[in-house]
């Protein structure tokens, strides 16, 4: 059922162990949302699944083979990742940035083939940035820029798409724009999408699978209505919330009304960074 899974993975920054003995499977063909508080390790887990970080122990498997021992170029044809706040060199235009997505498919000197150009064009159209194609990336607004980066990841033509907080710093319309795009890619092209998202209601609405993480451990995973419960939210985020059904779609919506008792104390004692 899953082409990508982690088996007993330990992840550490230097000597500090962030994640211990993590095993999880990414359901193929679905949108999976990793949720958790700041510093819970969700971003670290995403990076390790996408082989950006090496686990200290254990392994991530893609199609049955350990991902870190495969040629990184071959993996790049299967899996694309968009990190948080990527930056483009000054003067690089949108279409050139999107063209970088073809890198894993190119060799040596060769310039872009007709096929490459067709795919770049498609990625630019599907993300709705045709009018900005010749503009320098740094001159775009946040939402446009994020779509340009997603277009680059799409040009990689991978079955798996990993995104680390793709909607952060965007206004509400742009957040929905990005999420609708991911939804469309998942529905129309059966791409497997894994993303870290902060907004639980977005996660519940757009993901078919949610993984709640606390201190590097999976607390709960499953369909949104299994994960979006009063108890899980209290355990993972330390908040008290009412869960109601979205009147339009029926997916669970969370309405936080207060901090759970234990976390009130924590918030008073110290504020932990991301």
């Amino acid at each position, binding site marked *: 059922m899953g082409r990508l899974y982690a088996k007993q993975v330990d992840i550490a920054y*230097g000597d500090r162990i962030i994640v211990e003995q993590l095993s999880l499977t990414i359901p193929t063909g679905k949108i999976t949302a990793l949720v958790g508080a700041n510093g819970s390790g969700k971003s670290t887990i995403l*990076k390790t699944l*996408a*082989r*950006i970080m*090496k686990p200290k122990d254990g392994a991530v498997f893609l199609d049955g083979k350990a991902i870190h021992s495969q040629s*990184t*170029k*071959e*993996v*790049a*044809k299967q*899996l*694309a*990742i*968009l*990190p948080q706040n*990527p*930056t*483009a*060199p*000054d*003067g*690089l*235009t949108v*279409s*050139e940035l999107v*063209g*970088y*997505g073809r*890198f*894993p498919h*190119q060799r*040596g*000197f060769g*310039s*872009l083939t*007709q096929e490459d*150009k*067709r795919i*770049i*064009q498609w990625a630019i159209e599907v993300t709705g940035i045709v009018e900005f*194609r*010749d503009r320098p990336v740094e001159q775009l607004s946040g939402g446009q820029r994020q779509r340009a980066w997603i277009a680059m*990841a799409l040009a*990689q033509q991978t079955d798996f798409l*990993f995104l680390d907080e793709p909607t952060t710093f965007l206004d509400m319309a742009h957040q929905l724009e990005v999420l609708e795009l991911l939804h469309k890619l998942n529905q129309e092209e059966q791409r497997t999408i894994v993303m870290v998202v902060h907004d639980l209601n977005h996660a519940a609405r757009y993901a078919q699978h949610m993984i709640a993480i606390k201190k590097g451990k999976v607390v709960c995973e499953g369909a949104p209505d299994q994960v979006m419960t009063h108890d899980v939210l209290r355990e993972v985020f330390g908040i008290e919330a009412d869960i109601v059904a979205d009147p339009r779609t029926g997916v669970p919506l969370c309405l936080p009304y207060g901090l759970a008792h234990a976390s009130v104390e924590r918030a008073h004692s110290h504020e932990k960074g991301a």
Partner: protein
Amino acid sequence: MKSMQAGTMEHRRKIRAAQVMAVLGALILAAFLISMNTGFIKLSPWDVMKTLVGAGTEKQELVLFDFRLPRIVLSVLVGAGLAVSGAILQGVSRNALADPGLLGISAGAGLAVILFISFYPMTEGAPVYLLPLCAFAGASLTAAVIYSLAFRKGQGVAPTRLILVGIAVSAGISAAMIVLTIKLNPEKFQFVSVWLAGSIWGANWHFVMALLPWLMILLPYVMVKARVLDILRLGEPLAIGLGTSTERERIRLLAAAVGLAGASVAVGGGIGFVGLIGPHLARRLVGPHHQYLIPASALAGGLLLIVADTLARWILQPSEIPVGIVVAIIGAPYFIYLLMKT
């Protein structure tokens, strides 16, 4: 129609790069011609022409073929080597202020030269020819030390750490050099200070032949890696995500940068600024793609140094100033201008 559209920007960049390179090439050629006429012994353009076709006097032939031409050719090659090295380092470290000094190349070469000079008597003959070898060894050794100090197991070399370690080690070496120079006798001291300021001091065809292979091997290699440099510029996570073995590519590219700068410094002395300004200038002219940036940097660096060397011979005739100082005099205002603009 659509594929035409997709090609527009790429096409525009290509044309722009070709124009820029043609102009830079023409300027180098012009500087070359002027430089042949410049120097203590006057050679008019007509004399130069006559000598080139073999109709000059013996003295004119000696001046042109044995002194002036190798020096001019060498300045272009050294400038190109340093600028391409700087372009690589700026790409790999993702820092627009990186230059060959970052890897301790100038400092390491300088220290080696000072050590060599303090222990060898300054006599005619052999030892001077060992100087470039010495400088090259010092440069590569220092680069290796800095790289291994910046290396962390499991994480490799983070560009920021590389820069910080590079600055620290270079500062340490500079301090050691000052201590050593104090002990030198005046004659040696003068030689060392001219070397450190940068001067195409030993110009002869042997040096040209010693430097040329480095450029002929490493420039095409870096061109093959142009796209890898583009991708590395996006940062570690994206570069890995796009299928680059970042650690392996970084070490190869750094080795190429050390080879280019080490060989250039070995024959040109501690010429600063070219490795910083050459790529900067090139980037402003042709944009961020290394496919164009690398050759444009080579040409810009070559042009800068041939002009600087010509001026160095001309300004205070009959004496000369070290070319490195002229480069700094041209370079500093350009940098201040950049600073004011941004």
